[in-house]
């Protein structure tokens, strides 16, 4: 498989340039975007010019927008169901990742594809919480074998992922933001101290801006690898641009990272968002988190290998216009509906948002 041309990042950074693309380039662009889980993002960025996009690609972009919009609506519902299940327990969950961006109305939620809901809850209440979810229609996977279950419970100290029996939605219940096996140990108690309660949804929280960014950075560079690549980098960029309008955010960022033990991921995150996406980060913040050249060189090498990059990115200063990016795209399907038979009164709305070719073959 030949390495992807840097078409996708080029267009994401300069959307108007897409208008000059030939049909075959559109073809490649959309396929790259889909695999990078960035089709909806691309569609949002191209919105001002959508009418000028040729009909073939335009349908795909429009479909991506429709899907993102629909998923957002269903995510709202999902969160309301989660709140209803936990309220009698007096447990106030903290929403994480994409769900948090959406429910908090953050720009980072635009063009995002929503799938699993991730929540953070106090470790001490895990047993009660698990029971509550099971009582409200969530189940564990049928085919979860004992090894998998032990892996989750004993090794990851988590309950296995839950799926709702009617809606088909997925729920991951965490009590830490990094697995205990991670090299970095996060002070979880500190996370609960400083959250933001959602207006209109009492008892449901999101992380404070600085913590949200640190969490995103921690996952982006967990184990020193670019796990989810460009998509997650765009998330981080969006968060930084939005929160960064407040100088107090920047003042708190490095000190908080130190307190939580997340200085290194933050340093890597800021390095890559500034270099690749031109995220405006004050130089004093960059200096404060800098950990020196040797730390990132192996990372860069690893990135390039996995990114199948034809060229090396420019190492001279910040990104200007179009530059070569190390692109690590992981294959992923944009989650979309399928014709599953549903129960009489309820529809597996989420299952419909995640079709597989296998399911279509069953029809």
């Amino acid at each position, binding site marked *: 498989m030949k390495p992807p041309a840097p078409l996708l990042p080029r267009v994401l950074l300069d959307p108007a340039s897409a208008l000059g693309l030939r049909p075959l380039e559109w073809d490649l662009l959309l396929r790259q975007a889909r695999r990078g889980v960035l089709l909806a993002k691309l569609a949002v960025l191209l919105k001002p010019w959508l009418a000028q996009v040729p009909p073939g690609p335009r*349908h795909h972009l429009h479909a991506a927008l*429709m899907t993102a919009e629909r998923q957002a609506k269903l995510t709202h519902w999902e969160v309301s169901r989660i709140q209803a299940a936990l309220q009698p327990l007096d447990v106030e969950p903290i929403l994480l990742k994409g769900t948090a961006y959406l429910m908090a109305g953050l720009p980072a939620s635009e063009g995002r594809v929503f799938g699993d809901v991730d929540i953070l809850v106090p470790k001490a209440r895990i047993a009660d919480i698990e029971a509550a979810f099971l009582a409200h229609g969530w189940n564990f996977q049928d085919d979860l074998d004992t090894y998998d279950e032990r892996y989750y419970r004993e090794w990851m100290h988590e309950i296995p992922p839950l799926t709702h029996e009617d809606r088909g939605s997925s729920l991951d219940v965490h009590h830490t933001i990094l697995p205990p096996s991670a090299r970095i140990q996060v002070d979880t108690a500190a996370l609960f101290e400083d959250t933001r309660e959602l207006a209109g949804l009492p008892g449901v929280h999101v992380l404070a801006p600085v913590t949200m960014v640190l969490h995103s950075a921690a996952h982006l560079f967990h184990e020193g690898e670019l796990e989810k690549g460009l998509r997650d980098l765009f998330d981080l960029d969006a968060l930084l641009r939005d929160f960064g309008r407040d100088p107090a955010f920047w003042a708190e960022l490095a000190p908080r990272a130190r307190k939580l033990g997340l200085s290194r991921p933050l340093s890597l995150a800021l390095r890559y968002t500034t270099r690749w996406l031109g995220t405006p980060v004050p130089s004093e913040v960059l200096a404060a988190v800098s950990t020196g050249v040797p730390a990132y060189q192996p990372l860069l090498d690893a990135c390039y290998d996995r990114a199948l990059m034809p060229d090396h990115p420019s190492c001279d200063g910040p990104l200007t216009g179009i530059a070569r990016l190390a692109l690590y795209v992981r294959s992923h399907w944009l989650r979309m509906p399928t014709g599953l*038979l549903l129960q009489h009164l309820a529809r597996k709305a989420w299952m419909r948002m995640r079709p597989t070719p296998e399911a279509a073959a069953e029809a």
Partner: protein
Amino acid sequence: MKIRDLPPGDVRRRLARGDLVLKVPPFVARLRSDVDRVAEDLKLLYADFELGTTDDFADFHLEVLREGGLRRWVKPMARFFADGEPAFSPLPAEQGFHMVEWGLNWAVSTMAHPYLSYHAAALERDGRALVMPAPPGSGKSTLTAALAHRGWRLMSDEITLYDLATGQVSGMGRPVNLKNVSVELIRQFAPQAELTRPVPDTAKGTLALMKAPEQSVARIMEPASPAWIVMPRYTAGAGPALHDMPKARMLLLLAEQAFNYDLHGRRGFEATADLVDRCECLDFEYSTLDDAVRRIDQLAAEAR
């Protein structure tokens, strides 16, 4: 240029290079395969379909490629890829084109968003469309194949597209799926029907695909006004009987059989409600194809 206009060997060559760009309005599929059987079946089933050029934008890139290894010679297996991602377990290479069809179904069902797409067959007569939603095992495909050779224009067997703006339905003129006894039944019922060589012993039994008649494909861009929504139920020994089905129930049934109903949200609900509102909603029990076709023809002849 149509597939049938290509010089001998060209289909196979284009498929091998991944240069076969097939127009299946409203979509364009780019196909690649190194399996001879895929070329053979494609030539038969899509003979009347137009080709695009390799510079065209393609909505889907579908591939059926031989698996390597020792098995390659003993029992060749093939794997399906959609946009570079594998899907389905590898299957005997002779099922290659069935994989293409499943893959196309899936691709279309995930993409048909300007339309509401239903898992249903559709046939047209005198400008009016008969829509048959049906879960597997209802005999829908057999009935569709039969009607397609008795004066009804085949629009689709699997995926019917409903235009929210115009209220018209359309199809893609793609092959009809036949299984087990239906293969022979249709051969008897319509000797002129063009079928692929049946593939025995698949997980679903013996499979064959029936080409859409040339007239159907020629008129594929013509939508039709939906007039009847009929739920067929093959019941051994049953005389043909059409019964009214409550519209609300048909609405739910259609919603169940729709691919992108949820995506359209409220519009999907209202459009489906309008559809059942405008159409006669019927339940159809039958056992022989002759009876079934006669009864459906009668339905079409009755004044509305």
